[in-house]
Each structure stands twice: as C-alpha cells, then as structure tokens.
C-alpha cells in the first residue's frame, strides 16, 4: 500500500512523516519519530500505556490511526516538562513514589494531565474515573491517585 504523508505537531514541534494507511499513532510516534515515551502495553485499547493527548483530549495511541492526526497537536510525556522544570504532575508522582517499574507512568501522566486541564480541582472519584482505563500492575493505584490529587492541589495553590 502506498505510504501517505502526515503532518502534525508533536510536543510543540512540527513533524512530517510518511505512514502506512493502517499505521497507528503509537507506532508512528515511537518507531517513526523516535519518541519512546508512550508505551505498547496491549495494542487492544485495554491498558492505557499508550495514552497521548490529541488536541488536548486523551487518546489511545494504539487505536488511533496516524492519518487521522493530520494537522493536530499531539502531546506525550516527553513534552510534559517545561525544559528542566517538571510539570506539577511529574513532581507529585516523584514525591508520592507513584511509579515502580514505570511502564504505565507516561500513559498515567497524560490521562491525569487531560483531567487536570479540564477540571483543575477534581474529587478522588473523578481522578479514579480519569485513570480507570490505565492499568498499573505494580503500585495498587493508591500512590497514583494521591499524586494526582496533590498535583491538583498544588496547581490550585499556585493559582490562588
């Protein structure tokens, strides 16, 4: 099949790449563009390890075709920090020891960012719902939930 050109913005930088029509965004970001932050955990849309933001909305990279991302803005965990300054979510994940193997972390962070961007002051239940599609086999989720709540609080405090 003929490969097709696609252009989108990845973590603030314009990128152009040729893709197979059936290629997933996850595959394009990882093997096409060399950003290995989003992970392949299932390729079935059931683990959330591939979560990226497409125009600010959380999307499963493994179920999103690259050709549908023409002209969009994509964010991955690689672009979360502002230069050397960590995003409050990253800082909170560190402080709360919210990662063990770290494989789910890039996806968790993006799911959490999407939540905080649209709901800066979520309840615990809202946090749980936001990460309900993200599997973590190591942490038991508790430190992740606490980290997201803490990050929200900290951002709130900064805004106040």
């Amino acid at each position, binding site marked *: 099949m003929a490969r097709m050109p696609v252009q989108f913005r990845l973590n603030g930088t314009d990128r152009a790449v040729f893709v197979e029509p059936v290629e997933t965004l996850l595959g394009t970001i990882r093997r096409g563009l060399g950003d290995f932050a989003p992970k392949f955990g*299932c390729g*079935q849309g*059931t*683990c959330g390890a591939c979560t990226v933001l497409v125009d600010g909305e959380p999307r499963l990279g493994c179920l999103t075709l690259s050709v549908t991302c023409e002209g969009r803005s994509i964010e991955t965990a690689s672009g979360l920090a502002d230069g050397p300054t960590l995003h409050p979510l990253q800082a909170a994940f560190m402080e709360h*020891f919210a*990662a*063990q*193997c*770290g*494989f789910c972390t890039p996806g968790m962070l993006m799911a959490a960012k999407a939540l905080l961007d649209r709901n800066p002051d979520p309840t615990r*239940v809202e*946090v*749980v*719902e936001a*990460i*309900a599609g993200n*599997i973590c*086999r*190591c*942490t*038991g*989720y*508790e*430190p*992740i*939930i606490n980290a997201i709540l803490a990050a929200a609080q900290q951002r709130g405090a900064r805004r106040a």
Partner: protein
Amino acid sequence: MARHQGRGMASINYPIGMNLGGDPSQALVHANPDGKFTVALSAIDLGQGMKQVSRQIAAETLGVPIEDVYVDTADSDTGPHDMGSFASRGTHRVGNAVIVAAKEARGVLLEAAAEELEVNADDLVTDGKGNIHVRGAASKSITVKAASQAAQFKQGKTISGRGIFLIPLSNVNPETGEMSPVTAYAHACLVVDLEVCDETGDVKVNKLTSAYELGRALNPKMVEQQLVGGAWMGMSHALYETPEPYYPNPENGGRDYNEYLMPGPGDIAPHDIAVLERPAPDGPFGGKGPGEMCANPVLPAVANAIFNAVGVRIDTLPITPEKILRALRAQGGARPQARRA
C-alpha cells in the same frame, strides 16, 4: 438482600532468597578521580527498586553521600555475573555483594586519605557528607574528592572493589526433605474487613490492616510501595484473577485487560500498615526483602473474612461471586459468624 460485614485474618512467614544456595551475585565498585562512585551490577530492576537499594547500600558502606553513588545495571559487557532477580534474592544476595565490593573500595579510599594526612588508616572515619577525618579529631580531615584525586594522580591507586556473595549449595534429602533452603524469614499478619452481598455474591473489601516484619527497612518509601502494591495484588489473586476460570478446564482465558480481571483504581481499599524490623543476621544491614511475600497473607485473610461474613468456605481461588452464590445456595443462605472486635 443484605450486605454482611466480615473480618478475617491470616499470618504467614516467607523465605528470603530461597533457592538453596549456590547462586552467586557479584558487584564491582569504582570511583572517578573526584570521588564519585559507580556500582556495576547485572541485577535486574523490575520496578522493585533494585537500583536504588544497591545504591543506598553502597553509599552507606562507602560512607559517602547518596548523590555520590550511581548504579549501572545490567549490561553483560560491564556488569559482573549475577543469577537474576527472583526468589526474593535481589536485596539479600546483591546487597551483600555490594557491601563486600564497597568495603574494599572504602579500604583503598581510607589508605589514600591516610597517606595524605600522614596518619594510620585504621584511625580514619567518614562523616557520610564527603569528608574523611581522624576519629575524635574532626579538624584533621580531607575530602573524599581530595583523597580520590591523590589516589589517582599522586599515589597511583585505584579506588575500587570487587564483591561476590555466595551461599554454598544445600543438599535436599530425598527421604526426609532435610535441607537448608533459606537464611532468613520475613513475617506478616493481615486483617481484612469486607462485606459480602448475599444477592449478587459481590465482595467489597473495605479495609486492610497489617503488620509486616521485614528485617531492616532499607528504604521506607520503597517498602511502602511494595506493601501497598503487593497487597493489591493479593486482593486481586483472591477475588479476581484467573486465566482458567473453570480450572482444570483450560478454556475461557482472558485475552486482554478487559477479560482478565483485576481490581481497578476504584476497587481498592485503604491499607493501614505497621512495619516491624527484626534485622536478618546475614542480610545487608539486616534487610530481608518484602517484594514477594507482601501479597500472600491477603488471599487467605479474604477467604476467612468471607466465612466470617456469610458462613461459607470457598477453598478454590479466585473467590468469584459465582462461587459465593453457589455456596450460599447450598447452605440455604448467609450464616454470619460472630463479629470480631
């Protein structure tokens, strides 16, 4: 329909580094000329924190700040031989190898410092902040950095060390099972509070309360990671997980995370933990290694709490709503047992 409260407990021990010995781990430690150390290993970090534990053990033994040590693992060209991360052997075996290597490197460091200070190396101590000084005379001191530079550029010494830890293999007697399988045990007792719905068979875990004895907690934050995550896995094993729901029927296994069930972030319960530390005589700084055992007490405690709630015994894991309902039907309904406390 009614939801019945139940409380159950279980207590366990767990063999640390149980593999009958004969499985060495090695470590290499060396300093750059500024007195910054690298620990080379072939240990595997699966998320349990092998890198950080080795790093803390090395820093403590060397007597230098934690920032002055990094762990490099696992590249078979540069890391010395190690059997691997399984059987709770990592902290115990690798940790002890790191201590041996770090002691040797520290010995050279102190010799270099002694030569510079013109004192006996036996009289030197480290302050853990990057300085070496004469015992009882803090002013007669030299930095680790200066001592390392002197060692490298003036004295021609390598500040390095090699370590191996090997427990000799143990025979197993075929008739009696006599053997030396292990050198240390960790311990735990865990209480589960839950409720069982007698209409749906649904179990909701409300609280876990536990006491874990783990030898010395080398890093309390990482111990907490293991215990919280491990207890979650125990709950998952008890109530959710199976690739063969009607074992020994091999069919009906899950193909993805929607079909293979595990508790999600909305299904977890608070876990109130007490950590006891009875140092293992042969563990690195008395550490044992909580990684494997933390899930184990949860499974029976959940089963026992279900009995306490509705009076049925489910002896086949996982304890699904289907099994509970079938047992309740066979029993003629819920029979709550005496409440405990």
